[in-house]
């Protein structure tokens, strides 16, 4: 009974570690592996920190538990009369400082590629302007073959909530907000960027796998914050172009003349 509490304080970290080991198989883990090169780097960084942190977590708890374990049946008349140790203080200041410095410097590169313009990939393709509003994502593509312009063009193409991008191609979106703050979050690609009213923020990412990925809002934007559900579709270049052409056909349709051939076909199959 004496040892119950030391045991208790060592037992729970054990449960915590076990939980982390079983979590991936229970689905309590990343929604999927990262489907973007930058995302892979972020994950690697996460796992590196996870290892460092887990070792520290377990180590400190073993130390704590051991001190308690010994302390409950300390038969000595008095406790150990010590006010501290200078060399220990130095040791346990320098060691964590070194580790923390290492983590800081190690990950600067990822941050730089993600956010510093001069470090962006060279072949960035400006795919669309994404404007968040309560409670949807409005998307403006340039007409096929044209470049994305800062201001809306007459032949721009518009959709809501579905963002199509070419796969294996670093793409850039211009992120804006029409009303309050929102945040563009695509968990599978590990991308998140706030949309700030009054500012246009460039965001780049590269999907390395074809498919549809959930797009959510990560900054409280009002009562419907939770339902700003969008999708990012990464598809082969040809399909992406087809998609734009369909959009063009639909949006160019004046209600009298038939929409262009290819567009009508795709519209049917969808």
């Amino acid at each position, binding site marked *: 009974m004496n040892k119950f509490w030391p045991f208790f*304080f060592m037992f*729970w*970290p054990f449960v*915590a570690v076990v939980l982390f080991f079983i979590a991936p198989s229970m*689905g*309590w*883990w*990343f*929604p999927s592996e990262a489907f973007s090169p*930058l995302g892979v780097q*972020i994950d690697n*960084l*996460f796992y590196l*920190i*996870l290892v460092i*942190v887990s070792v520290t*977590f377990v180590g*400190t708890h073993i*130390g704590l538990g051991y*001190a*308690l374990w010994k*302390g409950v049946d*300390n038969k000595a008349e008095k*406790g150990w*009369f*010590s*006010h*501290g140790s200078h060399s*220990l*203080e130095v040791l*346990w*200041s320098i060691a*964590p400082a070194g580790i923390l410095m290492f*983590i800081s410097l190690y990950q*600067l590169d*990822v*941050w730089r590629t*993600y*956010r510093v313009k001069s470090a962006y990939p060279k072949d960035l393709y400006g795919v669309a302007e994404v404007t968040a509003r*309560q409670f949807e994502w409005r998307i403006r593509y340039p007409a096929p073959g044209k470049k994305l312009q800062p201001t809306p063009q007459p032949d721009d193409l518009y959709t809501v909530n579905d963002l199509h991008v070419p796969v294996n191609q670093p793409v850039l979106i211009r992120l804006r907000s029409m*009303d*309050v*703050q929102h*945040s563009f*979050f695509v968990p599978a690609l590990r*991308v*998140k960027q706030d949309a*700030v*009213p*009054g500012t246009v923020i460039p965001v780049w990412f590269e999907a390395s796998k074809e498919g549809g990925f959930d797009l959510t*809002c*990560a*900054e*409280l934007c*009002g*009562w419907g*914050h*939770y*339902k700003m*559900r969008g999708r990012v579709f990464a598809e082969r270049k040809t399909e992406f172009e087809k998609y734009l052409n369909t959009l063009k056909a639909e949006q160019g349709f004046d209600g009298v003349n038939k929409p262009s051939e290819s567009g009508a076909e795709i519209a049917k199959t969808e």
Partner: protein
Amino acid sequence: MSAVHPTVGLSDHGHGHAGHHEIGFVGKYIFSKDHKVIGIQFLITTLLMLMVGGALALGVRFQLAWPWRAMPLVSQLTGGLFAAEGGQISPEFYTMLFTMHASVMIFLVIIPILAGAFGNFLIPLMIGADDMAFPTLNMLSYWFMWPAIACFGMSFTVNGLNAAPANGWTAYPVLSAVVQAAPGAGDAQTWWLFGLTLVGVSSMMGSVNYMTTIINMRAPGMTLFRMPLTIWSMFITAILQAFALPVLTAAGFMLVAERTLGFKFFVPGNLLINDAPATVGGGQPLLWQHLFWFYSHPAVYIMLLPAMGMVSDMLAAQVRKPIFGYKPMVYSMAAIAGLGFIVWGHHMFTSGMNPALGMTFMISTMMIALPSAVKVFNWIGTIWGGKVQFNTVTLNCVAFVSMFIVGGLSGIFMAAVPVDIYFHDTYFIVAHFHYVLFGATLFGCFGAIQFWYPKMFGRMMSERLGKLHFLLSFIGFNGTFFPMHLLGIAGFPRRYADPYIHPYMEHLMPINRFITLCAILMGIAQFILLFNFAFSFFAGKKAGRNPWNANGLEWSAPSPPGHGNFDVPPVCYRGPYEYSSPLSEGTDFLMQTDPLRHTGGVGNAGDGHH
């Protein structure tokens, strides 16, 4: 500063000198200027607010476990009072719930329980003063809490009992600045801002008082490096408050001016919000974030440092050992406070601010983990080789250390900017700050209540109930918050009324149900604390002056101390941590006031013996 009024015996506190100056019931217990009464007033108020905040949190948890179900009990009791349709939580009401939960917990519980309750009660007693430097100011600091509570409460009642601020405790504009952006919030948001300002006024009065008292009113012999770490922590906290708070207050007034007078600090032009006319003006939404976090990051340390100090004092007494590394403990608190002013940007990594700033804030944030680590090692060093007695106080202190380790380590993930890109505004953040604020601070406070209760009321709290409360709280707490790390890794965003409409989160409902059940357990456990608190007042074992055989000056005063605190004006001969000193024969403690064994050898607390 008034003179010391000696009291005669242990039991007749406050009556021994009744003829000296008569104070009526109101002056003694309501508008009291006695720091002890004010401290206890703060304590009882904050414990009640803890229950209010907890109830709001259970509302949040209920929705996440059983989305859109009518709340049991609540729906029957209140009908459609708060919730939209017969007890069901509407999405709008959900945003109000988490906003008010955080606001109540931060501004009406954690901040006032540390500085207001324990700061007030302990500072004069531990430094050997008869009261605070400015007793009237002190009284006002308590009574300003009530208008603040009223304003927060008002915000729940304007607009026909169905409104409240709905913009998060961080109240980011544009959402919080333009009324139409969150229609339900209406005037409530403005009331909320007034409430915030009043809490600030209260804190500021406290902070001025604490600084002055600690600098000027220490007993003879109480040098700076003989001060208990509790006092150091309160002192550093008071400085943090004094420098950070004005920024929040100013920002709050700016936002009020924006909401009510049409000023444009935060709202840029040409926004089309809901049905409002297009906005005009050239404000900057990020300005608020900078101002807000310039206060609120230091504030998270305001919400922690005093608990660190108190745990250090309690732990040393419970393991019968000097604190390990007294001076490093002091310096690391000072470092945390100093660094705390230059890390606010880590809340804004994804806000779109200049990436170079992001790097700077990342490095300073990493560095703030260092003094935290040093403190943890020193606490473990304090326990090492001690004679550990597992009572309620020890349990809560050890839990403090253990939970703080988790919270500090999860902070490292988020300090690494690229990882924070993914974690920002997910449940990982929620897990992180609950580990530091509840896991560390609140467990520290549970320990402190148990430890200083005999000094407050002259009776011990029940150990049985205390341990039961600890066990249930600890299990409930970890069951609630540990899995939230995993939710965060799964990309589960904060502040979602119904996350399950997103396919990648559909499978997370069962774990959320588990979390809610643990939260309910934890909530129920708090009634044990309240019961223990009230019950022991009448039935607790009578305590003498020094029930824990501890060293501090407060233990040389009667329990409870009368008006003026000390019957014999205390003189301090040594540091507060001389436990198990070879100089003390037959006992394992050496009180700071003990003159008999005063020798030149044992001086400041930090003097090394190794």
